[in-house]
């Protein structure tokens, strides 16, 4: 009897000990808590949107078709699927937008990785001139809302002759008209989005280049290996994880981009979703699901690559030397000049153009440029303090006095800071925990479920959360809560990816040495791990902040304009009040630069500093 009791106690103790041992590892606690939370925040909206595709929506096509078929006007139906895939409009509503979306996403990845990757390499691995300047200026397109480059593109290349709109700068000043394919459609969309996401590739790939252990390359150099071979056999394989991460992040983002294709006249799943939503509500939700399926597929590819991926420990604590390629006395300047010119057009020109736009008497009225007469300039867009008399401001007050703009500004700051802190912290912890327990299935699951929302196009995530959180019991529509929740869920991958990539580079020996010394986990994190990978971790915080500041696709269905700056900016852009949208753009850019400078001052790190500095 006693023996039996001993056995029972022993089994219980063993179990308890196992549990205790499991939870004694901080990474396991992190994985368990966030595994549960992230499962709910990811799965619940998906379930909501799937349900929506089977629901009959009054006044829409499903209600009409179901009424004809069975007389029902409420309940559930398969009509949305049947009509979307088999009707005469299938090509127009589904297949063409789908194909365009894929072309756009692939093209954007190619442009961003080539442009961002090459610049990252030149800045971190060569002795090119003016690296610090180029590094700082290169991230500007990512700071700006993505469609602002599209608007700049229109302002540059549109012409009355080709696009039937006002003449852009090239046409009005030099009489140059660009062909239609250059002005509208796939080409400008993928170039604009590619330029927008190139800094993203630059940050991720550059981070690896910068922190890369030079031992391997040095060894190859000592063995007299040709430079091209070192590049293809040593350097590129080491940055492959970062390139893959960039593809994963950019592909999903490009797929879900609404404003760029909208402004540049390309029909994608996102633009189709918006145009179909009023009459084909359930079918539009299927489009959102299709976008999500792409997200899941990308994640599965990522999983396959993770399991087959070789592990590259690039930060060992043994070597801090990075070998730099000598471009030659002339070469280092020639390449730098080319980049300075390129970045002028992608980073400086838009800002000049925005500033100039706020002083034009009418939107797009460049009379001053032809005449040189200062009468054709005005400060009304900034300084007008009343909206009673007609000042040509469409009933608005000037930017400095416009309550809507400043309320939206503070709303944006609130959402961005909240998302930065929550997404940054959760993502960093998840990234750390996953890196510590990479072989565990649960860790891989948590990693995937944390990453999945990012792979899902923004607009689809917005739709799903709108459906989920605007119901009878819980109605958060048009509150800052819904924006913070969605922003956090969506941007955790920035931090988790950034943290995971950097932690994978970190040799286990470093933390093991601290564990042997019995140093508590908090201290290990704050004194060893975070300081070593500071730039990557800060990127994990700054990226959600910056992205949130000018996010539109994710938030546009969740709140009204005037709530945050991006929806307000989009509102003014659509209205054609470019002075206001340009002014808001300037406010956004200045805000980000100020924050970047503060972070730089306080922590010694910044988004680009970690790479170009």
């Amino acid at each position, binding site marked *: 009897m006693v023996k039996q009791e001993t056995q029972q106690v022993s089994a219980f103790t063993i179990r308890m000990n196992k549990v205790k041992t499991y939870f004694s590892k901080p990474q396991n606690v992190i994985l368990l808590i966030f595994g549960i939370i992230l499962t709910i925040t990811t799965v619940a909206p998906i379930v909501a949107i799937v349900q929506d595709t089977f629901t009959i929506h009054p006044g829409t096509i499903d209600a009409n078709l179901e009424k004809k078929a069975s007389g029902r006007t409420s309940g559930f139906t398969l009509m949305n699927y049947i009509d979307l895939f088999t009707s005469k409009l299938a090509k127009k509503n589904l297949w063409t937008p789908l194909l365009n979306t894929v072309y756009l996403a692939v093209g954007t990845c190619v442009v961003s990785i080539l442009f961002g990757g090459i610049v990252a390499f030149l800045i971190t691995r060569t002795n090119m001139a003016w690296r610090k300047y180029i590094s700082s200026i290169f991230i500007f397109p990512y700071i700006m809302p993505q469609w602002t480059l599209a608007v700049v593109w229109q302002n540059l290349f549109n012409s009355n002759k*080709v*696009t039937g*709109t*006002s003449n852009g700068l090239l046409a009005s000043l030099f009489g140059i008209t660009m062909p239609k394919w250059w002005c509208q459609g796939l080409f400008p969309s993928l170039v604009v989005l590619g330029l927008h996401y190139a800094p993203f590739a630059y940050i991720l790939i550059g981070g690896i280049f910068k922190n890369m252990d030079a031992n391997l390359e040095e060894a190859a150099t000592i063995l007299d290996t040709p430079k091209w071979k070192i590049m293809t056999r040593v350097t590129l394989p080491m940055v492959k994880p970062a390139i893959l991460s960039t593809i994963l992040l950019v592909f999903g983002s490009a797929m879900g981009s609404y404003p760029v294709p909208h402004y540049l006249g390309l029909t994608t799943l996102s633009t189709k979703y918006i145009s179909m939503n009023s009459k084909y509500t359930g079918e539009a939700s299927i489009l959102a699901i299709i976008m999500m399926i792409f997200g899941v597929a990308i994640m599965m590819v990522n999983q396959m690559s993770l399991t087959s991926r070789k592990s590259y420990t690039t930060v060992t604590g043994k070597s801090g030397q990075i070998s730099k390629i000598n471009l030659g006395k002339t070469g280092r300047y020639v390449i730098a000049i080319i980049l300075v010119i390129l970045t002028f057009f992608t980073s400086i020109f838009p800002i000049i153009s925005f500033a100039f736009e706020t002083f034009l008497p009418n939107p797009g009225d460049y009379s001053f440029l032809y005449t040189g007469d200062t009468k054709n300039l005005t400060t009304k867009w900034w300084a007008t303090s009343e909206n009673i008399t007609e000042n040509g401001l469409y009933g608005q007050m000037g930017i400095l006095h416009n309550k809507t703009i400043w309320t939206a500004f503070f709303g944006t700051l609130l959402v961005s800071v909240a998302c930065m802190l929550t997404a940054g912290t959760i993502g960093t912890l998840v990234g750390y925990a996953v890196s510590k327990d990479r072989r565990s299935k649960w860790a891989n699951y948590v990693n995937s479920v944390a990453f999945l929302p990012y792979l899902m196009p923004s607009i689809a995530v917005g739709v799903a959360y709108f459906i989920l959180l605007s119901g009878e019991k819980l*109605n958060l529509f048009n509150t800052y809560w819904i924006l913070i929740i969605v922003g956090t869920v969506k941007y955790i991958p920035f931090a988790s990816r950034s943290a995971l990539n950097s932690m994978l580079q970190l040799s286990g020996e470093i933390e093991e040495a601290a564990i042997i010394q019995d140093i508590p986990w908090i201290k290990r994190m704050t004194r060893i791990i975070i300081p070593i990978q500071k730039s990557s971790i800060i990127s994990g915080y700054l990226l959600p902040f910056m992205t949130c500041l000018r996010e539109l696709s994710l938030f546009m269905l969740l709140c009204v304009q005037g709530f945050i700056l991006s929806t307000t900016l989009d509102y003014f852009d659509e209205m*054609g009040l470019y002075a206001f949208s340009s002014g808001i753009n300037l406010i956004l850019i200045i805000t980000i630069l100020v924050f970047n400078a503060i972070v730089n001052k306080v922590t010694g790190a910044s988004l680009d500093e970690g790479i170009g500095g």
Partner: protein
Amino acid sequence: MKKFVVVLLALLMAMSLCMAASAREDVEEVIEQAQTMTLEELAKKAIEESNGKMFYGVGNSSRGKSALPLFIDYLKTIDPSYNMEFEWQQPKNNKIFDQLTADSLKETGTFTMVLIQDGNQIESKMVQTGILDTFIPKEWAEANGYAEGEYEGYLPLQTLNKIFEYNCTGEKTYDNVWDFVAEGEHGLFMDIDSEVVGKNFLYMLTADKYADALKDAFDALPENEKPYFEAVIEEVEEDAYDLDLGENGAYALAWIKLWVESYNAQTDDGPICNTLVDKSATDQFGLLVYSKLRSVEESDSVSKNNIKVAAYEDGYKGFGGYGYCHYLFVTDNSPMPWTACAFIAYMTETVDGFSAWGKDLGGYSSNPKVAEANEERFHHMTGGMAEDGTVAFAAMNDRGYDWWVNEGGLVLEDPVYCDEVSFTVGSWIEMLDKYSGE
């Protein structure tokens, strides 16, 4: 114990359902009573109900935000201690319907009242589903010559018109509505998928009245211009028959087909106006909201004299544009139905209440008395005259609602007709290939 819990839950559920139902009945009862009351009586009720409270309104027009402080000032003239906080939301991208549907699920809604456009969706998504209730103010009905309970439609705050305007810096003129869909023409127009009232306009063209007008305009064309259009009219004749349209339905379908396949889609009327008033837009035209002209500032390349309103030109044949309404509703679960009714009455019965919109040309109060007083205040009919009595900007002399409907052939939206044809004519329109500039 379990049984007790089950019974308790059932009771709670039943109670909450009853409460929700009674809240809705309350709103309907309030509206019924409010329809027999004067503005002043409603104002007193509103003061009792909303003093010190928060008012949430939602609308397609941002001007509700400007009208609310004037309404509060009006209530203060009755009770100087009165005050009310307010928030006015203006959702975009058709989101107003989703927002109202989501809010309707609550026992007591967030939104007190609504200002909304697009009769078609209002009918099918808001009215037939019981989400919005119509309130007809007593004095508004009287001003329009209706006896109590006689008026059956929605309550329009105003009719807005979108009109054909063309850049006149060149030699080209447009004297027939078919000229806008002639070969090689690409008018600037807000995409019908982003602004659904544009789609309603196309639906309305298939109504007999407007199809007949299109036939008349076609008959007035010079013989050498007819063959291009005749080919299309013949092509769609069978479709017109299948869609059960009237005698001249094919003319409507032909015009719609040519329009959809030729217009150059823009994001908003603002950019269209900006393009047309510039001297570089020689021979271009657009179909846009008239009021956009008010904000154009004269410069070396931009002028309000660079455009002409097609319908104002002598000998013009066919419709000069289309009109759509901003409607006012009380939400069926309104938290403050008396205040909603009082505010609606204030906007539709007083010139101050309408002034937030009244200062613009191209927007016409649905109350003839208010429209008249508004014209006396803002002088839109002579808005383009210089101080010395000469014409400074001809396009700015708004000829008024009656002229637009009777002489300008304005195509007016009928929500019920739009709802009827949205899945017949509507689906046919969706099959057309929009102009992509290729």
